């Protein structure tokens, strides 16, 4: 048994291309002090299995005044009590105020470079919808997909348009989703609809993912000009923000609610990236010496 063990392990060798990549790291690291760098394609922190939901709350009060006319028709205001709001981490998203994913969600961003110079990436989509008289909620994305992980047979999605499944995309690690690693299912949607009273269950995770495989040649060419190793974090925050802004600018995410009276309302969600201190995006008590800057996802309404 011992020989089989040694022989098996002897055969596990790093590919030459990966060795070359490791050697090339020498020139990527400069001598000056930088915030803690991670070559990992994913910044990781343990987090609860539930993706945080961000609800953007938009209050929509429709007031239609009716004027009294000469024929004695009584005028009045018609006010609907339909309302629609979205929040991130329990904070309302507005057009002006920046609301960040918390540290753990930001730390779950994942991205890696592909062999053709492109990129694949993903991050938590922490949006929750709250309101009155809402029947269903539909999220759409123009570029990329929503990745939804559910316990098998317990999907929250009641309708949706699936993305073609032969693309290489991130997926949530099975160990992180559930202790029972064999009973979850994962789907990719260009749009999905959930019932208002069943947006999430305690094991649902929703992420935004994208791959340059579906980009135009022009966009891929623009991305290549950055000359950036997407796997490195903390090395050049300005450049890192610039690259992530490029990645998130065309996602085109919208949220449409359908009220019980059949009317609908839509808001567009904008995701940008900001350089912030960890303490700004996290409620944990972070020691001063560890409160370094990072690039965090910021959510607004367009």
């Amino acid at each position, binding site marked *: *048994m*011992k020989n*089989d*063990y*040694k*022989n*098996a*392990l002897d*055969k*596990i*060798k*790093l*590919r030459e291309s*990966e*060795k070359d*990549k*490791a*050697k090339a*790291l*020498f*020139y990527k*690291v400069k*001598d000056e002090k930088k915030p803690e*760098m*991670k*070559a*990992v*394609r*994913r910044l*990781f*922190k*343990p*987090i609860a299995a539930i993706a945080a939901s961000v609800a953007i709350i938009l209050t929509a009060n429709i007031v239609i005044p009716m004027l009294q006319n000469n024929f004695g028709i009584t005028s009045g205001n018609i006010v609907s009590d339909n309302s629609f709001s979205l929040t991130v981490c329990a904070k309302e998203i507005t057009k002006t105020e920046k609301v960040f994913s918390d540290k753990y969600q930001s730390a*779950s961003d*994942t991205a*890696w470079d592909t062999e053709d110079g492109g990129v*694949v990436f*993903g991050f*938590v989509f922490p949006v929750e919808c709250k309101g009155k008289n809402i029947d269903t909620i539909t999220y759409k994305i123009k570029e990329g997909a929503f990745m939804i992980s559910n316990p098998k047979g317990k999907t929250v999605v009641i309708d949706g348009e699936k993305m073609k499944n032969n693309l*290489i*995309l*991130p*997926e*949530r*690690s*099975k*160990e*992180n989703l559930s202790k029972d690693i064999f009973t979850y299912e994962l789907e990719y949607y260009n749009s999905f609809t959930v019932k208002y009273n069943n947006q999430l269950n305690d094991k649902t995770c929703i*992420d935004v993912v994208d791959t340059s495989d579906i980009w135009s040649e022009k966009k891929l060419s623009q991305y290549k000009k950055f000359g950036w190793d997407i*796997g*490195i974090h903390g090395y050049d925050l300005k450049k890192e923000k610039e690259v992530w802004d490029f990645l998130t600018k065309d996602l085109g995410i919208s949220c449409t609610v359908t009220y019980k009276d059949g009317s609908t309302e839509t808001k567009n969600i904008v995701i940008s990236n900001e350089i912030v201190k960890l303490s700004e995006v996290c409620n944990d008590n972070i020691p001063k010496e560890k409160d370094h800057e990072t690039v965090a996802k910021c959510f607004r309404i367009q």
Partner: protein
Amino acid sequence: MLYIKTEKEYIKIVEMFSDMIFRIAYQNLFHTNDAEDVVQDVFLKLLQQKDKCFNDYEHLKSWLIRVTINQCLDYKKSFFRKNTVPLEDFEIPYEQEEREILEKLYQLPEDYRNVLYLHYYEGYTIKEIAKILGKKQNTINSKLTRGRNRLKRIMEVENEK
């Protein structure tokens, strides 16, 4: 004393230890691409230690082993894994017995696997393993014994089937 100041010195270290780092990562994660990521991580961490002085290559090796194992723990907590080929598709020309051993190893907790690896493959003593991993010798001894016994039990159960 060993400093990593020049590219030449660094490349020598990559050549010496990259396979070892990959092996440790692979038998922790059993996922080729994740293990490759860990290798890059570990070398990046090493480059951040340019001012650190290692007593010798053995000291450096111990440091690399510890960092690799810690990095694998972080990966296991991660949200994302790549949607890439799993163990079965990785093209290592295993013999049947070798593949069976690895599949059985996969059933052990990773801390048992790491101790077995360091003892049987790298040839470290219990005392040395305890120092590398920052654990007590009794703990390492216990993990080694239990790891061996569990592996034997797994193999016995498999043979009974």
